[in-house]
């Protein structure tokens, strides 16, 4: 096998051949272009050299200079033996000399940036001595101090006998291109830095209430467990579904915000407060155990009896699960939260306001897992897991073309966002069953969908590393006759980080199958850019933290715009999450973001209520301005 063989084979590659249909289609396009070109001012061929390139001029230097002029390049010739140096009018202008200035090698070098001067001289001498063409870049400094960048090619001129007589140089002003490259390098670096810095603090907060989230709470808990004793209170709100039903979805969000505010006033300054799930809050009471913790829990319960809504409307009931821990133990914040959750579960089951969990150390890991497996089994078999669908609009068409499937847990006849439930399930290894349940439901939904829409399914980190999952997906798609391209799997950065090799294999297999992959919550985690490079993502979902305040926040604007540009360059589609108003949608259109998801597009609805046709949304206001 030699290079000629390789090139010959490559030239026969089927990918470079056009079908008859493609040729006809392109001919139609060419004809349209030709007709357009007949309109004055609309001819894209204006300025092209229409001469035959093979009609060789005797004088090579003249031929090259003429072409260079047409392409906006400067030219110069240097014949050392004759001590002759000449340049074109365009070259004089590039060097910031008047057309009447007498060309000279010294004048050229005078305009070269002092740090590049020696290199340029060396190149000129080398090309002249070695009779070899050379290409190089250098800076020039104009009379007013402006620095420009030139790309030069030196060629050797020969007389009819083949004897070198001098050099011919062509120069192209590449300043804009150099600036673009620098700007891009700067932007990429800044994007990574900003994401790492901002992501760290954002990753610790619940976006809605600004309280600590589950991750940060567990970290605080781990630290406390290592150093001292204390108590964890886990609060669950019941009745939010009814609130939403009676007063609209915003009312539920308002109740959650009011609860956060109230709890912040009730707990002590040394306590740690967090929102760890859709309707779950947690309080860490450091150095406070049984005798002192109970009154605090009761005080919170009493405060929570405050009616959050006007009289006559459904009340929101609070249950509290409470567990104590003693100091000096290995960090096991997650386990403690699971025990607190079990106590909360018992409180709901017994309709009691406060339930104390078992003493620390009395629940073994095996027992904890057994209980959770049972709870997950009940949730799946008892149809307590509901699927809701949130629409995603294609901003170029303003049509809802996709839905993200979201789980709701109805353990207490009150569907909630089961983030806490899912976190625990993930920790105890039962999440895979839940993911498989959702995949089955998603595929069933696609079978029965009359308008061929697309659904997106979230996958946990555990499932990403689960060996048989791609095969299961393939079997289900094939047995139901559903096209893989209608299914997108959303994977979070956190899920990827835990096992990059497995994630890569998983992503490749699903991609080969024809399913699409989306990188969820882009920007809120770590090493996002590397993920985009190494994994075959079709879509990036820009984290809502960058979108929610887009109209006011300059940094968010720069970041969202940059992400959109970067992804467009990479051929990756973008979806903005948390789009809450039409003005934000309009800005996203301007930035080139492909799709939007959020309350301005539509809230999650039960999958049975998905419309039977693709929804056309009201026109986007395209003139929105940002601060």
């Amino acid at each position, binding site marked *: *096998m030699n290079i*000629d063989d390789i090139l010959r084979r490559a030239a026969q590659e089927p*990918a470079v051949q056009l079908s008859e249909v493609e040729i006809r289609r392109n001919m139609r396009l060419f004809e349209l272009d*030709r007709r357009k070109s007949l309109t004055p001012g609309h001819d894209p*061929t204006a300025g*092209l050299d229409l001469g035959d390139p093979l009609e*060789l001029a005797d004088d090579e230097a003249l031929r090259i200079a003429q072409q260079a002029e047409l392409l906006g390049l400067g030219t110069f010739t240097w014949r050392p033996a004759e001590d002759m140096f000449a340049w074109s009018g365009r070259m004089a202008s590039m060097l910031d000399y008047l057309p009447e200035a007498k060309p000279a090698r010294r004048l050229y070098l005078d305009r070269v940036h002092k740090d590049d001067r020696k290199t340029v001289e060396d190149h000129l001498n080398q090309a002249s001595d070695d009779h070899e063409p050379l290409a190089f870049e250098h800076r020039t400094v104009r009379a007013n101090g402006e620095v420009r960048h030139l790309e030069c*090619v030196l060629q*050797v001129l020969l007389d009819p006998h083949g004897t070198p007589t001098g050099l011919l140089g062509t120069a192209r002003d590449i300043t804009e291109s150099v600036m673009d*490259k620098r700007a891009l390098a700067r932007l990429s670096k800044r994007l990574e830095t900003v994401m790492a810095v901002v992501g760290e603090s954002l990753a610790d907060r619940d976006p809605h209430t600004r309280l600590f989230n589950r991750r940060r709470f567990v970290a605080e808990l781990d630290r406390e467990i290592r150093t001292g004793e204390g108590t964890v209170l886990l609060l669950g709100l019941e009745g939010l579904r009814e609130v939403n039903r009676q007063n609209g979805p915003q009312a539920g969000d308002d109740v959650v915000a009011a609860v956060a505010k109230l709890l912040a006033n009730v707990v002590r300054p040394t306590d740690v407060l967090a929102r760890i799930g859709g309707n779950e809050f947690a309080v860490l009471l450091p150095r406070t155990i049984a005798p002192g913790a109970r009154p605090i829990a009761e005080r919170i319960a009493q405060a929570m009896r405050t009616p959050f809504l006007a009289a006559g409307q459904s009340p929101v009931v609070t249950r509290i699960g409470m567990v104590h821990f003693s100091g000096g133990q290995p960090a096991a914040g997650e386990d403690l939260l699971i025990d607190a959750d079990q106590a909360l579960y018992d409180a709901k089951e017994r309709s009691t306001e406060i339930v104390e969990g078992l003493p620390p150390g009395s629940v073994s890991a095996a027992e904890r897992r057994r209980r959770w497996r049972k709870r997950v089994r009940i949730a799946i078999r008892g149809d307590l897991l509901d699927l809701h669908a949130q629409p995603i609009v294609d901003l170029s068409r303003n049509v809802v073309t996709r839905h993200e499937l979201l789980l709701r847990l109805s353990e207490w006849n009150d569907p909630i966002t089961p983030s806490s439930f899912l976190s625990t399930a993930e920790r105890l290894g039962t999440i895979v069953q839940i993911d498989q349940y959702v995949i089955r439901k998603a595929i069933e939904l696609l079978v029965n969908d009359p308008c061929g829409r697309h659904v997106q399914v979230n996958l946990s980190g555990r499932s990403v590393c689960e060996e048989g999952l791609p095969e299961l997906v393939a079997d289900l798609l094939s047995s139901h006759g559903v096209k893989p391209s209608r299914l997108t799997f959303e994977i979070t950065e956190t899920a990827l980080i835990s096992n990059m090799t497995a994630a890569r294999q998983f992503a490749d297999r699903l991609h080969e199958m024809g399913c699409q992959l989306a990188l969820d919550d882009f920007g809120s985690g770590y090493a996002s850019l590397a993920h985009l490079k190494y994994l075959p993502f079709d879509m990036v979902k820009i984290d809502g933290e960058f979108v929610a305040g887009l109209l006011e926040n300059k940094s968010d604007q720069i970041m969202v715009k940059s992400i959109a540009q970067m992804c467009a360059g990479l051929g990756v589609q973008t979806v903005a999450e948390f789009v809450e108003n039409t003005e934000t949608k309009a800005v996203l259109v301007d930035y080139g973001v492909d799709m939007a998801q959020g309350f301005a597009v539509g809230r999650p609805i039960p999958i049975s209520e998905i419309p039977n046709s693709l929804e056309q949304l009201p026109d986007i206001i395209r003139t929105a301005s940002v601060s």
Partner: protein
Amino acid sequence: VRTHSARQGASWQPGWTEEFERFYQLNHAQVRFFLRARCPDHLVDDVLQEVFSAAYTRWGEVREHAKPLAWVYRVAINKYSDAVREATAQHKLLKKLHDPVETDSAHPQGRIDSALLARQLLGRLPRSEAHAFLLFHLGWSEKETASILNVTLHTCRTYKKRARIKLREAAKELGLGDGGAA
């Protein structure tokens, strides 16, 4: 130099459409192969479309050339440079994606492997050297290649010679024996 402003105002003649369609059908794949060796795919398609559209629009003039395809190559090379400059930001990121292509380079059996390998090998050359080598490979003489690339004959020969040396080295590195570049 004959530019648009100086062109003869040839009006469209019967039969030119069919004539150009044959020209397009015959040469499209070769020009695409040439551009793909050193250019991200999405730019290749844009440039190809623009160049053949321009050739069609000006077919009255271009068809009179001894070899109309030479004109197509020259315009393609210039358009490609413009497109790359305009898309610097995208190009830089895409280049990262295209480098390096994983392939069983020691024994490229199939056509796809050969295409990837050709890209990998030519990707190691400066653009001008890769273009000179490819045009020669596609059957253009040195004089014609020099004219298409708008360089001197001496430069064209040097580019070709350098390309051959570098390709041979690259082939050795990839375990293709001495490469045997012609």
